């Protein structure tokens, strides 16, 4: 089958980086090492869209395409909040989504962290003056990190994870003195 022979198993990973300088993905080994070290080889993420324009979701979904393949670092988007370590939030927190968002947070076992993706959850974005928006997220939950951008590119999200790992490492050292 020509389709198979031509396209299949062609490794895409080497052409991830367009410009060689300063790319987050050059540090990909570092990300994997961090995940291995700090979180016992797994970081499980639960996503809640609280009122985005769907661009952030597209970029998060793109993280699992063959170019980025986030799961090779041990980072996985999971179906249930009960399995998650991190609550990832996109969108401006609409009135109607506030309750489901908080319930999802409650159902994540401790220790848990909140990471926001995009400008909307941090500031409310262009919708902040609406009658139907009651964000930003920081009004309700303690946010460990904001990944900025509208929407942030997949590379920026990976860089965000890397920074998050650094943060955990530092707090780890402080609390356990290791």
């Amino acid at each position, binding site marked *: *089958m*020509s*389709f*198979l022979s*031509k*396209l*299949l198993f062609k490794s*895409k990973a080497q052409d991830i980086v*367009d410009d060689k300088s300063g790319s987050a993905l050059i540090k990909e080994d570092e990300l994997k090492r961090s995940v291995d070290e700090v979180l016992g080889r797994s970081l499980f993420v639960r*996503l*809640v*869209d*609280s*009122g*985005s*324009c*769907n*661009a*952030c*979701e*597209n*970029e*998060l*979904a*793109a993280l*699992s*395409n*063959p*170019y980025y393949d986030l799961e090779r670092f041990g980072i996985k*988007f999971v*179906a*249930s*909040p009960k399995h998650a370590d991190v609550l990832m939030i996109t*969108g*401006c927190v*609409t*009135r*109607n*989504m*506030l*309750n*489901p968002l908080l319930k*999802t947070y409650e159902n994540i076992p401790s220790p848990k962290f909140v990471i926001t993706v995009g400008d909307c959850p941090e500031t409310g*974005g*262009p*919708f902040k*003056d*609406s*009658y*139907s*928006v*009651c964000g930003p997220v920081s009004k309700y939950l303690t946010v460990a990190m904001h990944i900025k951008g*509208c*929407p942030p*590119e997949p590379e920026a999200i990976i860089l965000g994870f890397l920074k998050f790992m650094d943060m955990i490492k530092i707090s780890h050292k402080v609390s356990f003195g290791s």
Partner: protein
Amino acid sequence: MDKILINKNIVELNDFLSLVNNLKETGKYLLGIVASDERKFDSKFNIKYFFGGNGIIDEYLVKVDEKFQSISKICPAAKMYEREIHDLFGLVPDGHPDLRALMLYPENWDFSVQPLKKDYDNLVPKVKEYGKYKFKEVSGEGIFEVLVGPVHAGIIEPGHFRFSLAGEPVLQLEIRHFWKHRGIEKVCEGKDFNEVMNLVIKISGDNNVNIAISYLQAVESILNIELTERAKYIRMIYAEIERIWNYVRDVAWIFMDIGFALPAQNLFSLQEELMRLNKSLTGQRFLFNSLTVGGVNFDIDSLKIKAIAETIERVEKVMKECEAFILNSSTVLDRLEFTGKINKKTAEELSLCGISARASGLPRDTRIEFPYLIYGKFDLKPVLFESGDVFARTALRIKEIYVSKKIIGDLLFNLPEGDIIVAYENKPEAYKYAVGNSETARGNAFFYVMADDKGKIFRLKYIDPSFRIWPSIQYGVLGNIIADFPLINKSLNLSYSGNDM
């Protein structure tokens, strides 16, 4: 500029029902209902009904106080629009079968406050429970319910689905949406046309170019702006690139959902290549901010022409291989054929548009019905399928990628010289309004824009293709097994954010 032909009428409340009946018989279909609070002129609310078909848009204006005649019984497509007007304006559609709250949830909103009335004071009621939402009930021996959402298992937007099942087949599906209701229409009021662009592109991010084209068509018709030929060509190129990457992603997800990862992952790679092409063209992977009032923000030079031509050539090659691969696999056909069938009659009654209409045999494509930009110069024929199932919608997307590729090829080859943006005077006639129309990857995007006396927006109404198409899933899933629902949903791939606004 190609103006949309509008046939304007004012009708009395009493004879509207029989009129709608006549309209339907002549092949007209509902494009949208727009309410607006114009009490400051004649102490009445205006409700405008737009009907499309036969290349002309018919507009019917009804002036109402607090009640208006519901047309849902003879025109089921009107049901959601009337509920929406009931929510946001507090007007009561007389004889409507289902007046539960749509976007202002009784769980957190005081229904005596209606935000789109002009005398709304911008105060929001306290977040507390004001009432309960009643779901439909199906009863009988052995019938059980499966509740899904609003927070779903995957990386998708929120929406609540409630299945009533007897064994595996679905007896009834009830969808509750508007979790993401952001109140965009209200936020737009009082802002100027260029400022609103930033909100318009965030209605539904993955269709932003085509939605913006519709908005700009309305605005430029209010401001009497005549675009340069080059700007029209470039807008169309961006619009078709967006359509292609949307279709590639949609087809990829259909294969992901039937567990056929090989073509799916190859198509995801292809999508990534297209996103990177977008970035090289405009610096933005979603082509955000590529259009502006009076033209486009980014020109296309010879290098970019080469990059676009090469990428779409590759898209066609991969799609062709993919198509052959799919059509030769009996396991794929087994999942796609006869699944999620939406009958032609249902499609007609619900005034469907876009992929869903064409897959059910309705020749509805805004690019052909109401040609805009320079689509009129292309001899486009609607790509049609009759079966209305998942297979039809998948195959239709693949075929339309080839059409879009041809359009882009022609545009690149004939790209005229000239400016990409024209200067304009920002002084529209007071209270002038216009409509805009365009074909997104999901279907017809309809804008109604009215200026006020200061050149700002008095009323903006956007009707997303997803808003029209969502109810059709409730018919498409009937009799299918529940395990096929994700596939049916993906085959329509509707937007939640565009629907919820």
